[in-house]
């Protein structure tokens, strides 16, 4: 892939990431089978809640899970955004015939963590199968946008790395 194609892909990752961060990514539906009707009437069953990556991270940060919240904030929000910035700078350098700087190497190393949020939701979906009372976690389309943005930036990163190598 040439610099122009990589730059286009990187631009495409921008809106995808924005949508992936802000669009609904999962819906948690609490249930209390087999006494759900009574439990719901008694106010013991909460309403289904839908989270985006941003709102889910914020929820973790503000409800006594700052550790997990910070990890997700770092690798699901800050790092993907920083990666887009670094890749744009690298592609700009490549267009001018300059080699990528040390930031790019760090970005490549940390890339493997940029799907942390997808991993967390996947784990939730799998573990929700064993939740009591039939509680479910459903994946929403925002997660696919987020995963697509992450995969696109991985592809751009690989392409930029190849351009840099002689």
């Amino acid at each position: 892939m040439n610099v122009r194609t990589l730059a286009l892909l990187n631009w495409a990752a921008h809106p995808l990431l924005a949508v992936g961060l802000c669009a609904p990514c999962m819906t948690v539906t609490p249930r209390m089978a087999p006494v759900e009707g009574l439990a719901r009437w008694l106010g013991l069953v909460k309403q289904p809640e839908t989270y985006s990556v941003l709102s889910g991270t914020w929820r973790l940060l503000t409800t006594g899970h700052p550790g997990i919240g910070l990890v997700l904030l770092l690798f699901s929000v800050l790092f993907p955004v920083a990666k887009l910035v670094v890749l744009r700078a690298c592609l700009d350098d490549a267009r001018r015939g300059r080699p990528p700087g040390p930031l790019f190497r760090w970005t490549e190393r940390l890339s493997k963590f940029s799907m942390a949020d997808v991993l967390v939701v996947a784990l939730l979906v799998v573990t929700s199968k064993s939740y009591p009372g039939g509680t479910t976690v459903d994946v929403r389309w925002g997660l696919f946008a987020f995963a697509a943005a992450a995969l696109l930036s991985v592809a751009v990163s690989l392409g930029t790395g190849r351009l840099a190598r002689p």
Partner: protein
Amino acid sequence: MRWTWIVGTTLAILALCGLPFLLWPADGAPPPRAPEGPAGVEAEKHYYVLLAVVEVEPEKRPGKPWDSGGSAPDLYYEIWWQGTEVFESATKSDTLVARWTNVAVDLKDVAKGVSLDDSIKAARIAARSGTRPRTSPTVGWSSMSVSRRERACFASAGAPGTNSARAPMFAAAAALIERRVYAEALAGPDLIGRFDVAVDDLTVGDQAWTNPGGRLKSVTCRVLPLDGVDFATLTR
């Protein structure tokens, strides 16, 4: 300068694309807004209506006590809706301030089997706008009253739906709720006060009126949705 440009444009694009989702989050529902005060009743929905607190004047008339022994009256109230009595409360003895809870179970309930709905001591009404024929303004009117038990007073207080002062409201109002507060007396029920409220004027939650009519000093009315209200709210 180059970094500023790259970071700036990246953040601008992210903000531009993500902003609609932040403004209209999750399921496309509007963002949660701060409560703007009590919510009115919605048309075509059903509600529980009860009087939570009633305070009456300390004397039946100036210089005349409620009961011959000087004790406070025994209070109860009725709720009339669409010309029909739809609820009568339990009687609170010897008090100037009576309080009724949303949920109560008495021996009568136990004898016939307790159900959750039966334990809710309130009138059930429907907020129904524009369904009454205009030629028949008495349909859909209702009332509440607090009294000492003297049924004859009903007639003098006016049958439900005859309150012409509320008539101009009829076009806009779904229905009227009439409240009658009684005090029990040896001679029978004695009407203390009666007042009408348009169903459209009801708000979900508690609302209080001062000097609503007769010898009523203040009345707090409670309205709860029939559906979608949980046990914690009902037993509040």
